[in-house]
């Protein structure tokens, strides 16, 4: 106890030096905390974005993940509804699950034959009600702009959304009243007007089967014809009505994305054949349940002998894993830099302190304090300096984070469709606070240990004779 009292009081002996040391540690802590909170916010934003789109876990027919991209129709899941029921009704999984839904991934050509333009598309077939429910997932209460968006039409299976880029390419800016959509050079291309009577192209055929339906505002929604190859290789076409164009963060995706109803996608991909699903997506209430839920689903698949493979969020969204890895590396790098600054600051302070107190060290040793007692005293001083600095830094960082969060500064993160408020995550980051606080405390103790060891090794007679 006396050692602690001496250590604490010694810190006040040279006010200015202690203040400078504490300030350096506090600023380092604050910077590290704010960076950590910013990165943490990016993590949860990325997680939310990905979970909303793809869920936490997905089941595919074996081999789909490696080869199915080239021919999704060939890797369909038979009797997908019974698999969904198995998962949905499982007593272990039930409390964890938000949505279990079949989806279809497909690609083909989207044509606006009235506008005389076409473009390859990447399509997603979803059950609208499930899709809408999935888009309301917000475990971290981020309320990200454009995430929930307008709901997908649950009543009419021929309606859906497309990417804003695709709308632009297909000349739908006007009909969809898209803002910030540059006019096509040379004006909107118009196809030659169809000959009198029925059109004899794919579009005409589809129109016969699916007459135009009114849009959400009672107006007629612009129509596209979607062409794809069925499971047996035959071309197939369906009529698709665009309710809305939504921005996608990545240009290639924005220029090709189509989200349609599951039934329409089935019709396009399987025609009159057996209707399957390409994947079964599971969205949980909480991301942290992924390992348990995944293990349980794998057990069900194995026990039932299903020809399915189970993939988790990290496999489904490799970009997410890469982005998290990159930010973790940046954070680690900056933490090391900050740690070095703290290390050298504390080493410098404690070395000065040892030099000034050499005579005192000799006296204490003469009185009977052991070498480790002397070392402990200086290490304690380092820990106290580090503790005060880190605590101040945490307080300063918390205030600064609050100010940033209320400043309304906007930024446009890479891969995001809409600009976001610059936010620092201040809730659910106790591990970050504790980690930084303890890390810098340990660093201060280590930094103090170097001069402390030197102090402890001094010869008593030399220390007493030191002037």
């Amino acid at each position: 106890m006396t050692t602690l009292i001496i250590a604490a009081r010694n810190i006040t002996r040279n006010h200015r030096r202690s203040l400078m040391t504490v300030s350096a540690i506090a600023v380092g802590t604050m910077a590290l905390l704010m960076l950590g909170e910013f990165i943490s916010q990016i993590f949860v934003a990325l997680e939310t974005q990905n979970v909303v789109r793809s869920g936490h876990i997905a089941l595919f027919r074996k081999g789909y993940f490696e080869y199915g991209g080239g021919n999704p129709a060939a890797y369909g899941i038979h009797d997908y509804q019974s698999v969904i029921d198995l998962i949905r009704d499982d007593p272990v999984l039930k409390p964890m699950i938000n949505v279990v839904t079949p989806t279809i991934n497909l690609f083909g050509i989207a044509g606006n034959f009235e506008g005389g333009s076409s473009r390859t598309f990447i399509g997603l077939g979803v059950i609208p009600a499930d899709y809408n429910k999935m888009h309301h997932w917000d475990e971290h209460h981020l309320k990200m702009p454009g995430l929930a968006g307008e709901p997908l039409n649950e009543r009419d299976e021929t309606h859906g959304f497309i990417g804003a880029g695709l709308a632009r390419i297909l000349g739908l800016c006007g009909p969809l009243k898209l803002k910030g959509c540059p006019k096509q050079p040379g004006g909107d291309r118009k196809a030659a007007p169809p000959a009198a009577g029925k059109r004899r192209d794919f579009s005409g055929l589809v129109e016969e089967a699916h007459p135009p339906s009114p849009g959400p505002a009672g107006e007629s929604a612009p129509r596209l014809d979607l062409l794809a190859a069925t499971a047996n290789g035959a071309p197939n076409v369906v009529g698709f009505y665009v309710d809305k164009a939504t921005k996608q963060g990545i240009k290639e995706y924005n220029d090709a994305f189509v989200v349609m109803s599951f039934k329409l996608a089935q019709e396009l991909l399987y025609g009159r054949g057996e209707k399957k699903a390409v994947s079964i997506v599971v969205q949980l209430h909480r991301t942290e349940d992924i390992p348990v839920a995944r293990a349980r689903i794998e057990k069900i698949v194995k026990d039932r002998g299903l020809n399915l493979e189970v993939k988790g969020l990290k496999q489904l969204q490799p970009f997410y894993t890469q982005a998290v890895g990159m930010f973790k590396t940046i954070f680690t790098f900056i933490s090391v830099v900050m740690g070095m600054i703290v290390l050298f600051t504390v080493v410098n302070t404690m070395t000065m302190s040892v030099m000034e107190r050499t005579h005192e060290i000799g006296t204490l040793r003469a009185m009977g304090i052991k070498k480790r007692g002397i070392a402990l005293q200086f290490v304690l001083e380092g820990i106290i300096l580090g503790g005060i600095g880190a605590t101040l830094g945490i307080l300063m960082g918390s205030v600064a984070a609050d100010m940033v969060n209320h400043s309304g500064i906007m930024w446009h993160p890479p891969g995001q469709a809409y600009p976001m408020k610059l936010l620092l995550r201040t809730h659910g980051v106790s591990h970050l606070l504790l980690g930084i606080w303890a890390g810098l405390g340990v660093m201060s103790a280590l930094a103090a240990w170097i001069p402390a060891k030197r102090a402890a090794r001094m010869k008593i007679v030399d220390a007493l004779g030191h002037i």
Partner: protein
Amino acid sequence: MIEDPVVVFDSVSKVYQMGEVAIPALKGVSLRIPRGRFSMVLGPSGSGKTTLLNLVGCLDQPTEGVIEVCGQLMAEISDDRISEFRARHIGFIFQNFNLIPVLSARENVEYPLALIGMKASERRDRSMAMLSSVGLADHGRHRPNQLSGGQKQRVAIARALVKEPNLVLADEPTANLDSKTGAAIIDLMHKVQEKFGASFVFSTHDPQLISHAEDVFSIRDGELIDHHREGRP
């Protein structure tokens, strides 16, 4: 022949190595310091007084020879054990007082008791009693920088004696005090020595202090040239 000595030196030498130059500070000194008396080590500057006192206080190791302090052979024990031994058996009074500046007078006196593991309440009572016996009962809360030179040396004496050591070593204890304060300090050391029965060993040039010597060891050029007993003044 001194019976039951508190310190025994047997052919003790100490050589300091300054780079490639070896400087002998003590040359084969053999002596026996009596228990319970005021012993003085006298000699001119550079004669080896401080080296001898350092060895007696177990602050340094001899290059050659055997040292026994309070019945303990110093060559046989580790640095930690020597520290414990000093904490229990030896008190130091320094020329510059060497009080811990961040501790109050009472805390300075109490500190040696903490080192030997005494309970806090007992430490407090004993340190206050010790401060009273050196006439500083009202100065317990004062930090060293709030005390005069004489008061600091009184605190240092209280600190050296509070654990009731067998041996008290004092290196020029009156050198930084005026003659009146020095006389008062000498008188105080006599009183506490009588009260606690400790053996005092001084290194000094101060004639006033020398006049109180009971045993005198004279050193010159690292050799013991004389030892004689005086009557108690």
